[in-house]
């Protein structure tokens, strides 16, 4: 059962207003596909929802109450954000996949087992001992996904997870996400309507700082 997530009057500006008072209730265990033009604020929205940044105004509410502090580690460890840049660590593929588990104090053997399981879900288990930074861009993104899957987030944000990937890598990532359906809340951004319709239970459009449901 994943966390429930609600946002109330969320506003954020940098040099210009990006998000202008967004309200939305995300239901647990559903898949939301977020669409919108470049610069619409999708990445900003993800950083706010993943508690990596504070909004200028408004609230991000997980389960019981508003989150006003960014260092609520217990809550932050139940959610994760997959970034467009994989941000892999300069170590082995296996150590990358096990990183989040080790942070959470999972023992070495158990972390290895879960990490190998996560690697298998994206077809990378045979590269466990390879250095992560020698992987191709598609494999890097798959490893970043495995690293996030390994920690079994209750809410999983993915910021353009298949942007600039070839069809084969794209399909592997989509399959891995489909296999998580119903077990975790997924909110992913994409420019590809076909992908949005394939993966999403609900399609959201972010445009001119406002969020709306489509279809």
């Amino acid at each position: 059962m994943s966390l429930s997530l609600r946002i109330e009057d969320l506003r954020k500006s940098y040099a210009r207003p990006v998000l202008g008072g967004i309200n939305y209730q995300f239901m647990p265990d559903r898949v939301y596909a977020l669409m919108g033009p470049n610069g619409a604020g999708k990445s900003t929205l993800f950083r706010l929802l993943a508690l990596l940044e504070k909004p200028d105004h408004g609230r991000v509410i997980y389960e019981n109450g508003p989150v006003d502090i960014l260092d609520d580690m217990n809550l932050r460890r139940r959610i994760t954000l997959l970034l467009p840049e994989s941000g892999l660590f300069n170590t082995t593929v296996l150590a990358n996949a096990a990183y989040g588990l080790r942070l959470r104090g999972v023992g070495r053997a158990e972390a290895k087992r879960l990490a190998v399981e996560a690697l298998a879900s994206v077809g990378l288990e045979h590269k466990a001992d390879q250095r992560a930074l020698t992987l191709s861009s598609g494999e890097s993104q798959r490893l970043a996904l495995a690293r996030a899957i390994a920690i079994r987030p209750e809410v999983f944000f993915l910021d353009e997870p298949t942007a600039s990937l070839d069809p084969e890598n794209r399909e592997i990532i989509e399959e891995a996400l489909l296999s998580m359906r119903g077990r975790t809340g997924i909110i992913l951004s994409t420019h590809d309507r076909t992908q949005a319709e394939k993966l999403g239970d609900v399609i959201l459009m972010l445009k001119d700082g406002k969020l709306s449901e489509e279809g």
Partner: protein
Amino acid sequence: MHYIILVLKDALSLLLHPSRELIGVVVLSMLVSGGGLIAAAIAGLPLAAFLAFSTRFAHLRTVTVHLLNTFMGMPPVVAGLALYLLLSRSGPFGVLGLLYTPSIMALAQFLLALPLVAALSHSAMVAVRPEVILAARSLGASPFQRVRTVIYEARYGIIAGLMAGFGRVMAEVGAVIIVGGNIKGYTRTMTTAIALETDKGDFELAIALGILLLAISLVMNFSMYFFQRKGKYQ
């Protein structure tokens, strides 16, 4: 040429059958240089981490980074002179009686290695890709765990800083000869012995010590090369 070959032969003979004096000089050098470098690592790495990660004291951090960069190029004899003035009998710390002791030589080595270790480690830490730090955050790393992750990611640069510090302290002669006095059997190191023996025209010991210094440097560099090759990714 014949003379050089003869001297080299004698130097190699000295290395194969080292005298107590030679062993003493090598051991003291390693202790003084190693001690100075270890102290520089103990002080320099936390300092580098503070400069890289702290969000407070912005002006102090900027000034410190500039000072470290400046002191990286400090001539050793200037460091030696400063220490000498502070620790000579008429100096403010003269009562400590530290001048011409191995301790003050290690302190001089520490002062020379610290800017290199701290500045190069700081550079390595701030050069860690921002997406790696963001990935660590999004995976649930606490502030302490993020610092640990960044230090791990910067490990090759940090090792390079330590190697640069090691190179400096092993090659150092100016400061240690001023504050150590080059006293036989007490404060004579490999480099100060080389300088003295060359002055005396007694090249066998000087060359033997030179070969040893090069060998130590070679071993350290090869260790570094293999360590970096292991972590090479592009």
